[in-house]
């Protein structure tokens, strides 16, 4: 193995950051060519390349950590700090959208009729599907905690079941939101209400999909015995991200759905 006098991980060069960067280029220019010329080739190519990059990069991390043992305690500490800082940056990302919402809704402009919701907008009833959509992330927070404790105790079957339940609840939430989007009586183009509503809930939905994918990806290493009872950082990161997504929904629900109706 590497002969180093420290516990840190000096990563070997790999091609995946380059392929990831190129995939970002292809996806963004693909979006542009799709908008202008209605061709999806570049976009499709970029998405394929992104998926290939993600698969190979995370496979590489698993090889370096589980199979080669590079993730010592200091390395894991650094990864934890990294994840916390990333989630913090995402919190600020959402703060921007909440700022926009409160800016428009606390002192509604005269063009909206001087009230919130604006004249002509029929908001969604917060005690129908949105309330179910609140119970679902709360339940999935319970199941992900259950999964965590099962992993820590080495109980394989309960961990598998609770992690699968978490993923299913995440998919259920996405399906419900998609249905709500389809049935909503207002659109993104309906003034500042539609804009703040769909941008905030839309980005949240994207984060739900990311979190669900993260948890799904954790299922695979778990079935292959990669997690040990005291070293399972991949799962910890997924669980933190998932809790963050659930908390953002709670804020969204209380601000936009409930107070804003």
């Amino acid at each position, binding site marked *: 193995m590497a002969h180093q006098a420290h516990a840190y991980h000096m990563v070997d060069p790999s091609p995946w950051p380059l392929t990831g960067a190129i995939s970002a280029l292809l996806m963004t220019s693909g979006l542009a060519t799709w908008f202008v010329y209605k061709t999806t080739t570049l976009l499709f190519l970029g998405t394929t390349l992104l998926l290939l990059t993600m698969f190979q990069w995370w496979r590489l991390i698993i090889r370096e950590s589980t*199979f080669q043992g590079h993730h010592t305690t200091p390395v894991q500490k650094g990864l934890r700090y990294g994840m916390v800082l990333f989630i913090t940056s995402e919190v600020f990302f959402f703060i921007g959208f909440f700022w926009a919402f409160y800016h428009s809704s606390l002192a509604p402009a005269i063009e909206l009729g001087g009230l919130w919701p604006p004249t002509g907008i029929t908001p969604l009833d917060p005690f129908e599907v949105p309330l179910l959509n609140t119970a679902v992330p709360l339940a999935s927070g319970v199941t992900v905690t259950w999964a965590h404790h099962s992993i820590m105790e080495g109980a394989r079957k309960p961990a598998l079941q609770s992690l699968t339940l978490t993923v299913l609840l995440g998919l259920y939430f996405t399906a419900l939101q998609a249905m709500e989007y389809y049935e909503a009586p207002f659109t993104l183009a309906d003034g500042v209400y539609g804009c703040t509503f769909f941008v905030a809930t839309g980005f949240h939905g994207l984060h739900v999909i990311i979190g669900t994918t993260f948890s799904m990806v954790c299922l695979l290493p778990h079935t292959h015995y990669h997690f040990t009872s005291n070293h399972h950082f991949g799962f910890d990161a997924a669980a933190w991200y998932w809790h963050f997504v659930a908390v953002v929904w709670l804020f969204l629900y209380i601000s936009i759905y409930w107070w804003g109706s």
Partner: protein
Amino acid sequence: MYYKFSDFTQKLTGSAPLAAYSPQGLRLGVPAESPAMIFATPTKLVSEAQATVEYLGANKVPDFQRLFQASDSIPVHLKRGLPDRLLYRTTMALTLGGALYCLVALYITAQPRNK
């Protein structure tokens, strides 16, 4: 005065005796070895307890550990041989081809439209 190394500030800071730095593995009353890693064990009924219980396939992690720790200076992302190479080459082909295609497409879209 007792000291500990603070991870956050990356400096030595004063600390209580119990939290003070002690050399790796040297703790009073604690054995020197790290706790045994508990790979998940399946829950099993008393009636079906056997010497080794398999659930969803055997644990292949030790085999992979041996494979990936072989010192043959092959980079980690190619260490598994043919499947790794195929996937890498496909990805690289898409990357370079895609980048070229993208530049061409952007050049075309940048052309002014003839009225």
